[in-house]
């Protein structure tokens, strides 16, 4: 029978704690047992910085999102708290079967000696329930050692040469000294030549590092022994005093070269750090302009490839399955099965895998998780050439870069989310404006109709209605009813055009025929203005939809009349031009501001203005544009140099009329 139990993960304020949470969740999926995350809250919690405390809150949210339970348990000491929690659970119905604890990097020599809580727990429960699993929270795979600092792998031939050169110069100096001293004085000063060789070793180790320094120490030792220690021209040492002196020289030369090399290595590493932080900054700068993930990855890929001189790839989870991971950029890299094993481990357990890490499965790639405080974004993969030895600083650099890349990607994601919510908000606003605009456009004419008819009735009742007043009132009501009708038609047209319900049937049509009905249709509006037609000399045929084109012309002319001062004309000219066959409608009104040329055709433009405009405009223009585009034509707007607005509609296909000829035939 399967024992009931639970998985407990003990978390701390470590920034990479979500790796622990993920490990617990995976374990829970594997075993089917519930899991909880426990934070032992010691008095130190309140001494921690705010960020760390906020992290705990965030981890709590994350745990709940991932299907776990988050608990904060106060205790004076972390280890004691963990132990008492495990022991208490033992006597309940669901004892703890698995414990997951994190183990962070140890920095420095002293920390190495201290046993971590994770290690203590492992030791404590060794062989007993619960099973304790350690999860490394950062790369512990490389620690900085003297060996790394001394950069032994960078030895160049020239450095070996310098070692020889230094010893040679010291020898020349010693010989020069000997040539200039009497033999008695030389005997007294014999031991001081050691100083020349020591100086040589200091210079070489400072300049060229440890190995050349040591080499020069040994060379110096041998040279002194051979040339200046009796018996001369032999490596034998007879006098023990001289032997002691020589040994002291060797020891001090070795120490000097180690110290010199160490200081040189420190200097180098500072320089390197500076260079790397500049590179990090550069990468951040160049990618920070990207507005979508794809572009950012492209830029990062280029920068990182250049920076490492290695192949770089980015993996991210596909949108539909956030647990999976797939190659995102570049798209054409082949990975072996072992590479993919490393990759999946990296993604699943949120830790560095691949070459140089604990589980590398013989992979040439190194996989670094891309994580931020809030989420896991993907995996950064770097293919490491075989001749490169990885050291701690490389591991750190890759981690730092991964963090940088994550920050950039997260920022883009957040910006996108904000943008989307803004668009949604804007759309909502437009919807609200459309509603208020439509209600205004419908209610204003109704107000006139109801007002006019109610005063008509009131006067009739009192039997004081004059015939002229009656006419004026009924005319007003009629006019407004027609306006209402045209507005409703416009809304319906727009809806039908947008939904594709209107089918256009274009055919060759006499150019003038679409204007024939205008004076009659616009009779009501034309009380104070006149239409002037300018026809071309010859008759043309234009390929158009007659009914819809008439609608456009009516809208445009009606619009022109609305903006025309009393007793001015509206000019309608038409004819062939380079652009196609055009109809031009010009009024003598105030014209249209140039910055509004595009927006007057926007169906929402009407909404952005106060609800006071001449009723029905705006939508009419939007409909006209839609109709013209549906006929492969266009609509343009300009201001006439002598004042007034000019609307032009253009049809691309036209020909000279064959009317007469076909009649004859």
């Amino acid at each position: 029978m399967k024992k009931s139990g639970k998985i407990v993960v003990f978390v701390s304020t470590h920034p990479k704690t979500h790796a622990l949470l993920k490990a617990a969740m995976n374990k829970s999926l594997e075993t089917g047992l519930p899991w909880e995350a426990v934070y032992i809250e010691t008095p130190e919690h309140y001494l921690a910085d705010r960020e760390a405390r906020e992290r705990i809150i965030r981890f709590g949210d994350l745990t709940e999102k991932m299907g776990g339970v988050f608990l904060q348990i106060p205790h004076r000491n972390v280890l004691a708290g963990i132990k008492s929690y495990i022991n208490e659970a033992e006597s309940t119905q669901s004892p703890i079967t698995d414990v997951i604890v994190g183990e962070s990097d140890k920095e420095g020599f002293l920390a190495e000696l201290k046993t971590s809580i994770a290690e203590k727990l492992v030791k404590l429960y060794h062989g007993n329930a619960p099973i304790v699993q350690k999860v490394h929270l950062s790369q512990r795979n490389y620690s900085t050692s003297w060996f790394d600092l001394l950069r032994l792998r960078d030895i160049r031939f020239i450095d070996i040469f310098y070692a020889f050169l230094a010893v040679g110069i010291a020898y020349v100096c010693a010989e020069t000294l000997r040539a200039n001293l009497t033999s008695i004085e030389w005997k007294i000063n014999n031991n001081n030549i050691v100083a020349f060789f020591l100086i040589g070793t200091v210079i070489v180790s400072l300049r060229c590092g440890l190995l050349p320094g040591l080499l020069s120490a040994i060379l110096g030792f041998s040279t002194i022994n051979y040339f200046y220690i009796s018996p001369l021209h032999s490596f034998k040492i007879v006098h023990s005093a001289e032997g002691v002196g020589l040994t002291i020289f060797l020891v001090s030369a070795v120490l000097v070269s180690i110290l010199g090399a160490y200081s040189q290595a420190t200097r180098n590493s500072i320089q390197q750090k500076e260079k790397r932080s500049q590179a990090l900054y550069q990468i951040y700068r160049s990618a920070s302009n990207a507005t979508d993930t794809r572009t950012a990855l492209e830029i990062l890929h280029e920068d990182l490839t250049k920076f490492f001189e290695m192949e770089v790839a980015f993996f991210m989870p596909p949108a539909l399955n956030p647990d999976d991971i797939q190659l995102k950029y570049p798209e054409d890299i082949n990975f072996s099965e072992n590479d993919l094993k490393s990759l999946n481990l990296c993604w699943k357990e949120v830790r560095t895998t691949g070459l140089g890490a604990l589980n590398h499965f013989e992979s040439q790639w190194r996989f670094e998780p891309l994580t931020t405080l809030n989420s896991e974004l993907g995996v950064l993969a770097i293919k490491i050439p075989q001749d490169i030895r990885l050291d701690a600083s490389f591991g750190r650099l890759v981690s730092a870069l991964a963090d940088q890349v994550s920050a950039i990607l997260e920022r883009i994601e957040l910006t996108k989310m904000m943008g989307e919510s803004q668009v949604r908000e804007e759309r909502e606003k437009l919807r609200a404006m459309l509603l208020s605009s439509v209600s205004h456009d419908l209610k204003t004419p109704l107000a006139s109709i109801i007002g006019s008819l109610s005063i008509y009735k009131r006067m009739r009742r009192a039997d004081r209605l004059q015939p002229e007043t009656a006419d004026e009132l009924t005319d007003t009501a009629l006019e407004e009813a027609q306006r209402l009708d045209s507005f409703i038609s416009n809304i319906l047209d727009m809806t039908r055009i947008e939904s594709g319900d209107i089918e256009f049937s274009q055919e060759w049509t006499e150019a003038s025929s679409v204007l024939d009905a205008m004076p009659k249709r616009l009779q009501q509006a034309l009380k104070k203005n006149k239409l002037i037609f300018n026809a071309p000399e010859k008759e043309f045929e234009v390929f158009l939809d007659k009914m819809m084109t008439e609608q456009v012309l009516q809208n445009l002319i009606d619009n022109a009349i609305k903006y025309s001062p009393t007793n001015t004309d509206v000019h309608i000219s038409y004819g062939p031009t380079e652009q196609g066959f055009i109809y031009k409608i010009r009024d003598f009104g105030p014209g249209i501001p140039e910055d509004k040329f595009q927006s007057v055709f926007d169906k929402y433009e009407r909404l952005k203005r106060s609800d006071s405009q001449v009723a029905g405009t705006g939508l009419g223009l939007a409909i006209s544009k839609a109709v013209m585009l549906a006929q492969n034509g266009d609509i343009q707007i300009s201001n006439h140099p002598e004042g007034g607005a000019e609307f032009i509609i253009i049809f691309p296909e036209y020909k000279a009329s064959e009317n007469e000829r076909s009649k004859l035939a």
Partner: protein
Amino acid sequence: MSLTGAKIVAIDDTPSIRTFLRLSLEYEGAEFYDAGTAKEGLELCKTVQPDLVILDLGLPDEDGLDVLPKIKETQPGTNPPVVVLTVRKGRRTVKDIFEKGADSYLAKPFMVDDLLEIIEKNIDTCHTH
């Protein structure tokens, strides 16, 4: 009817509404003046010194809500009553209308009888004050 001699200014950008307002108010014996924009309306208030102002909120040059206090300023002593006519019906708008100093509010469309009743009431209150 008791509007005889009362000076009434209407500010509304819809000509047909001005037309029936003129017909109905002149019929009741009022002196009627009208304007299509806020600017013209304010000028008119200054010169005419009306007993009552009818104001539409959606004016082409300025929002009626902003015009309201300015109308009151044109006659600091007498403080003419202002009746707001608008299609806006939102609770918030109605609250704003009264906060800005309107005396009455009527949603469009409306029956002329209702408007006349409101106008008479306002002019009466004005006189009793």
